[in-house]
């Protein structure tokens, strides 16, 4: 018999618009991976979700994306030495983003983040990101680069996976 896991840690549902959300004081023992599930949109315009770990504002992040927009071939691009990890496109329509922070609870490796993000009216994408730090994750911030806030009703749920 296995050990039950995939444990809800916290859920945030916005009762008013907000430019970012942060899960802080994330338990640093008991979970090996973290999963954040976002069902969100912004108040206007378009942009890209981003994730920052442990409040690290240094150029510690890299990411690579593969996406399709419903016509033509798929596209891929990559970034390195950035101050945030991109986590998927977002606009004023409902979208879903699931980010899995692998080995968030380990101190022996950088943190690889696997991301799937969909905005059914516009695109589908898969991403990988890396936080170049061996530090155990104790906070996770989600925002976007559009200049607009997350809309009322946007939800962000954090889960812990034991290993």
């Amino acid at each position, binding site marked *: *018999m296995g050990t039950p896991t995939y444990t809800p840690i916290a859920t945030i549902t916005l009762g008013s618009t907000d430019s970012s959300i942060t899960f802080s004081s994330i338990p640093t023992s008991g979970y090996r991976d973290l999963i954040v599930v976002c069902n969100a949109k912004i108040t206007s315009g378009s942009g890209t979700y981003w994730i920052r770990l442990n409040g690290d504002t240094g150029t510690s992040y890299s990411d690579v994306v593969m996406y399709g927009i419903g016509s033509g071939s798929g596209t891929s691009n990559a970034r390195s030495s950035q101050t945030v990890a991109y986590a998927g496109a977002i606009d004023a329509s409902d979208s879903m983003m699931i980010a899995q922070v692998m080995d968030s609870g380990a101190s022996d490796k950088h943190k690889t983040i696997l991301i799937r993000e969909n905005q059914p009216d516009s695109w589908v994408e898969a991403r990988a990101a890396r936080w170049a730090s061996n530090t155990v994750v104790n906070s996770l911030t989600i925002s976007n680069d559009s200049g607009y806030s997350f809309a009322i009703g946007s939800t962000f749920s954090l889960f812990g996976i034991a290993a």
Partner: protein
Amino acid sequence: MLLLGAIQAQVSAPVAAGSFDLLATEILTSSQASVTFSSLDTLAAGYQHLQLRMTARGTRNANGDNLGIRLNSDTGNNYSRHALYGDGSSAASYGVASQAFMDLGTLASSTTPANAFTGAVTDILDAFDSTKNTTIRSLNGLAAAGVFVGLASGAWHNTNALTSLTIYALNGNLVQYSRFSLYGIKAA
């Protein structure tokens, strides 16, 4: 951290017993050729699907290697595999049949920046159903030199229930700190 205007719910207790359960974890203390989860008929009794969660790195002297999986020690050409992947400059795909393994992604290797490991989450569906071949899907990636993100799928053309699965690097060993965790998912 409470946000002004936000509703926040904190749940600290585990979920009710077992629809998504940790079955086993292996964290390598030194390099080795492969990792095997065996006796799945006992270890995963009562579960319908399996999920592998991995962070892995290999010893190949290159920016990447194949991270492969075989089922029930079958080394024959009884697998097919496909992938859609992005390498930072273009998106491409491949598909091959009659292969000796299924693909879990590109493995970070010796010339990848230190401490960078490939991440992969792989679902193995209906692992113990003897009426169908076993299929897998994998989300995998690494944002380091030799960047990639991939969606892989595979089929083992055999209807036997799973008794073991073996993960390995095609052209080297798996290094220390590589982590492989197996989870069981129950049906309703």
